[in-house]
């Protein structure tokens, strides 16, 4: 089986061949890895790669895998090159900024239509007793600014758009 993954905007092509009940040969570029696999239940997978042990967690969703290795977290995308590269190679696209955490909006610093610089704070979100500046990912003009000061937002809610 062949698969393509994207990690940090780089494409990786893997070839997987099952050799034994629990053994898979993984080819990545020039290198081959003999991997013995134990599914521990839940998202835990125990990999024995050429004798080296890696106790990892792989959480799958529709578009990506979240993999925890040695306490670090990797977001591995299943999207094809075209989908990923589209926005990068074309002209500047509209950006939607969603919140990665629930919280309360303390202050809205800019209004719809305002110019923003990349990294400029647009609003302040409070969660866990900390105030966090939510910044624009790119230069542009603010499209929508959804919440008002005092609003509560859930994870994933749209905060603002940059055109």
């Amino acid at each position: 089986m062949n698969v393509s993954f994207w990690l940090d905007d780089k494409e990786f092509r893997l070839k997987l061949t099952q050799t034994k009940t629990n053994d898979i040969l993984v080819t990545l570029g020039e290198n081959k890895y003999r991997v013995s696999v134990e599914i521990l239940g839940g998202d835990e997978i125990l990999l024995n790669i050429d004798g080296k042990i890696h106790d990892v967690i792989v959480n799958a969703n529709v578009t990506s895998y979240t993999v925890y290795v040695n306490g670090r977290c990797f977001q591995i995308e299943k999207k094809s090159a075209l989908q990923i590269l589209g926005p990068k190679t074309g002209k500047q696209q509209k950006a939607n900024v969603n919140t990665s955490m629930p919280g309360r909006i303390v202050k809205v610093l800019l209004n719809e239509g305002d110019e923003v610089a990349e990294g400029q704070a647009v609003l302040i979100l409070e969660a866990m007793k900390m105030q966090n500046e939510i910044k624009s990912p790119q230069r542009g003009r603010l499209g929508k600014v959804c919440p008002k000061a005092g609003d509560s937002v859930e994870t994933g809610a749209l905060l603002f758009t940059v055109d």
Partner: protein
Amino acid sequence: MNKTFRKILVANRGEIAVRIIRTCREMGIISVAVYSDVDRRALHVRVADEAYLIGAAKPSASYLNIDKIIGVAKKCRAQAIHPGYGFLAENPNLVKRCEKEGIVFIGPPSKAMEIMGSKTASRAQMAKADVPIIPGTLEPIENEKKLEAEAEKIGYPVILKASAGGGGKGLRLVKKKKELVSSFRLARSEAESSFDDPSVYIEKYIQKPHHIEVQILADHSGNIVYLGERECSIQRRYQKVLEETPSPFLDENIRHEMGREAVKVAATVDYRNAGTVEFVVDKNKKFYFLEMNTRLQVEHPVTEMVTGIDLVKCQIEIAAGLPLAFRQEDIKPNGYSLQCRIYAEDPDNDFMPSPGKILHLRAPSGGLGIRDDNGIYEGYEVPMEYDPLLSKLVTWGQTRAEAIHRMLRAISEYKIYGIRTTVPFFKRILRHPQFFAGDYNTHFIPSMQKEIDGDEPKDELIALIAAGIKSYCESKGGLGFRKKQKTSHWKTQGRWESLKRRP
């Protein structure tokens, strides 16, 4: 039976409530938890003997609500209240209310708490008692003219601080005269909005400072002892990140000199309870009184690890009127201890808070010199309403190097999945040659963060292979992998036998 209390109410939540409940159980005391709406399933409720709902998630409706807490204490006939840290721990109104209701407050008398609650009042009193303080004004600065005069007298750089402040809010470093007035105005405005009090005072700015604190215990009979210091200079945005004892920066003479000063500070305010005297120490090991925390400190476990003394047990015994069970000469700190504060924050995304459900948890517990004081469990939903401290991972070692290596090992076994945490951040600190050498001050983390992180490229490869395998299993419906081993070992043995020939 124990000679202290039959029942104690713990007016807190999270890891510190769990930690206090554990000592109560060890002492044969019935523990009573209180909880807010979002904490119905919190660990401190699960481990308590009794528990009562006290209101909505908002602290003012629950954990800060004195009436409700006193109401529960009276209803369930708790004889004493332990406030933990934060919330009501340094609120003299709770102390006074307890006195009125005939409930023992496990903490200092209200007067000592009030003095230490004010940065300027405590500075003034310490100056009078000849405790070294940082050159600066003792009172809030009234106007910009006085400000300029004081700054000239002290000499630049100076620092402006909110009188009611804490946690870095309302703090401004002023390097040159021309920045003074604008910084003063900003500091006042920040202080106003953060603490409802615009008062700001001025101090000499200490270069390459160390933040070092001394743990003390004081009983009703006037016995006061010090239990060594904690080095708290590993800070990020004025928040402590990692603490250790003993400080690699101090020598034995300064250590005991600071200990004796800390005892003097406590004596000056007729202190009673466990307490912490914070000092700032300059690069020449000259130390200045900063403030006194009149409660149990987040980082108290490192002191417990080297002294073997349970500080919460001491607090309870002191509150019950028992004299200290040991004298200064009995306290012989042994070895080295570190504490890593594990927060629900994303170190790869500017330490943004990361509340949510813990889908998977493996905490290290085995081996010599390991302690994990956490307030979480697998399946627990970390609420967004409270501070993000999940766990305090503590190690002990015969040498500082052993304690550090043990911490790295424990960190390698700590797996929290579902939310982001600061677990991986500690590897960077612990492996840093400057940290390992013990050669650091409060500027360490900002300067470390400017360095490029030497990520293991190997981890990326493992992640890709793991994703590949997961994808393979998904497409083949798991094929052949023993998802659940329901068949007998004997029946399946043959199938795996072939694997032995793996090179």
